[in-house]
């Protein structure tokens, strides 16, 4: 039988109403609060008992204090005099319990209580949230910018969806916490004028849902990275994950260790900050250095999204020897979309590259959420609009039957010249295929597919 249990803290710091009720309920169930950590509450098994809890705020305390200061101890002595004993504390938050039947509350003046909570909040949570707000807004702005510029590619990348979800959830929680606090304070001050204690709002369900969304998104992201991403992405993802955990453990570990050693608040704060900076920048530098080294030495080459090789290659369409080619494959997928691109060109690293060899490039967008199909098609159709105006080309409807497609367009110049780019719509996928890229066209190696070759494309890519 376990003697201790841990719970993630899903209460707002100022939610004294929710915290008190929760601690009282658990004490009645036989779990007495023992420790308040940064993320978790710890309880120890005890006899079930009806005790009163009171969460109080001592704004002069700090999470870096090795032990309560003389002043804080005096405050605790006052409380002990009326039967209130400290069950646990963390920084400015103190959780007291009282076994008397009808004890005098610690706070008997609502205005003074609101003032004490505000001082504690402004020196800790509000400050931290305000600091978090700026990078969150920046992160969301970058994510939305990427979504606007390359929505299909972005929605196909697990990291894109994951980061957007995280920024959104973080901003939502920050907004609710900050907005909720100031709204509560306004109401509490009004109520205090009438001598009434205003209950604090409970954001427990919202925090639980937010955390659940991030946990599910993170799990999905990691599974996707493990199953599909290339070695470089795997390396970066897991190193960054490890780095985050190490940073958290390093910074918190330093603070707790120095507290236990009895180091003063100032020294502890300076040392923890130093460890934070060194770990943050030092580890990042090490990660970047080794990633560049690994990429440069070829350790991370030959990445492939499609483990079985490209579904369509030049050799499927023409009678060429693939030895003279180099193939680049990139791709990713999420629960909404998948997109992969294949580029097959003459291998320029060879001693005698055959410039006459045809090239092939195509991008396949797999639409998993049918609602997105029309939107994806329109995006791909208009993808080159701005270049089309500049260089004088546009899409023209062609017969989809030879391609085995539902709809098909060919990009043609205004003067009727061909670019040999086609946009093909299949049941669940949309293909943009180039028989000779813009760059290679200059060398005269673009080619127009025959009806047989079009049928092969449909057969290979339209499934």
């Amino acid at each position, binding site marked *: 039988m376990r003697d201790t249990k841990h719970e993630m803290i899903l209460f707002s710091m100022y939610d004294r109403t929710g915290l008190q009720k929760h601690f009282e309920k658990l004490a009645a169930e036989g779990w007495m609060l023992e420790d308040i950590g940064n993320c978790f509450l710890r309880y120890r098994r005890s006899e079930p008992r009806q005790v009163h809890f009171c969460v109080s705020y001592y704004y002069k305390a700090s999470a870096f204090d090795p032990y309560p200061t003389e002043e804080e101890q005096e*405050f605790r002595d*006052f*409380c002990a*005099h009326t039967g209130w004993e400290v069950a646990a504390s963390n920084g400015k938050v103190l959780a007291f319990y009282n076994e008397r039947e009808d004890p005098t509350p610690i706070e*008997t*003046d609502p205005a*003074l209580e609101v003032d004490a909570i505000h001082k504690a909040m402004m020196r800790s949570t509000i400050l931290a949230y305000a600091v978090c707000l700026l990078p969150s807004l920046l992160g969301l702005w970058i994510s939305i910018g990427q979504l606007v510029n390359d929505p299909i590619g972005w929605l196909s990348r697990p990291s894109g969806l994951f980061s957007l979800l995280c920024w959104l959830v973080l901003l939502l929680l920050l907004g609710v916490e900050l907005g909720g606090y100031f709204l509560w304070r306004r109401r509490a001050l009004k109520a205090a004028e009438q001598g009434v204690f205003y209950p604090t709002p409970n954001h427990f369900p919202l925090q639980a849902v937010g955390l659940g969304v991030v946990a599910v998104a993170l799990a999905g992201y990691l599974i996707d990275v493990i199953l599909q991403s290339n070695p470089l992405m795997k390396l970066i993802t897991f190193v960054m994950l490890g780095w985050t955990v190490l940073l958290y453990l390093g910074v918190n570990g330093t603070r707790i260790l120095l507290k236990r050693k009895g180091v003063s608040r100032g020294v502890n704060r300076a040392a923890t900050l130093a460890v934070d900076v060194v770990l943050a920048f030092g580890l990042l530098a090490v990660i970047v250095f080794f990633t560049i080294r690994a990429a440069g030495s070829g350790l991370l080459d030959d990445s492939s999204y499609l483990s079985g090789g490209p579904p369509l290659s030049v050799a499927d369409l023409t009678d060429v020897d693939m030895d003279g080619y180099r193939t680049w494959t990139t791709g990713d997928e999420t629960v909404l979309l998948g997109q992969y691109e294949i580029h097959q060109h003459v291998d320029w690293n060879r001693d005698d590259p055959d410039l006459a060899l045809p090239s092939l490039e195509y991008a396949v967008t797999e639409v998993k959420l049918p609602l997105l199909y029309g939107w994806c098609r329109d995006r791909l159709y208009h993808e080159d609009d701005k270049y089309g105006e500049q260089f004088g080309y546009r899409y023209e409807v062609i017969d989809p039957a030879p391609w085995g497609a539902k709809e098909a367009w060919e990009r043609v110049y205004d003067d009727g010249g061909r670019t040999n780019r086609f946009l093909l719509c299949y049941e669940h996928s949309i293909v943009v295929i180039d028989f000779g890229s813009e760059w290679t066209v200059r060398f005269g190696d673009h080619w127009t597919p025959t009806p047989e070759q079009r049928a092969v494309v449909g057969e290979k890519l339209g499934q």
Partner: protein
Amino acid sequence: MPRLKFQTLTEQMFYVLLCLKTECCGMDILDRVPAMTGGRVSVGSGTLYNLLEQFLDAGMIRETKVEGRRRSYVLTEAGVKRLAEEYRRITAQGEDYRRVFGEEGTK
């Protein structure tokens, strides 16, 4: 319009200051207020701690001695004056009440 600090004293403020006519420490006040009011008024320990700090800042009380963690306080002249003003305010309220309801209304 927000009320100026200590423009009027709450019941708890009044009794805390009243206790400090003679030198005493915080814990004495916690016991004296209920005793003085027959249990009608109690001051919470957190409330008292904050009140003492604010009275000190406002110069209404001063620290007289420190024995370990026990600090004793006593009213200053400003505190005595403020308490007297509050007494006059409360008395004036009582007189106004009597004027309206007469002596019968006090029974």
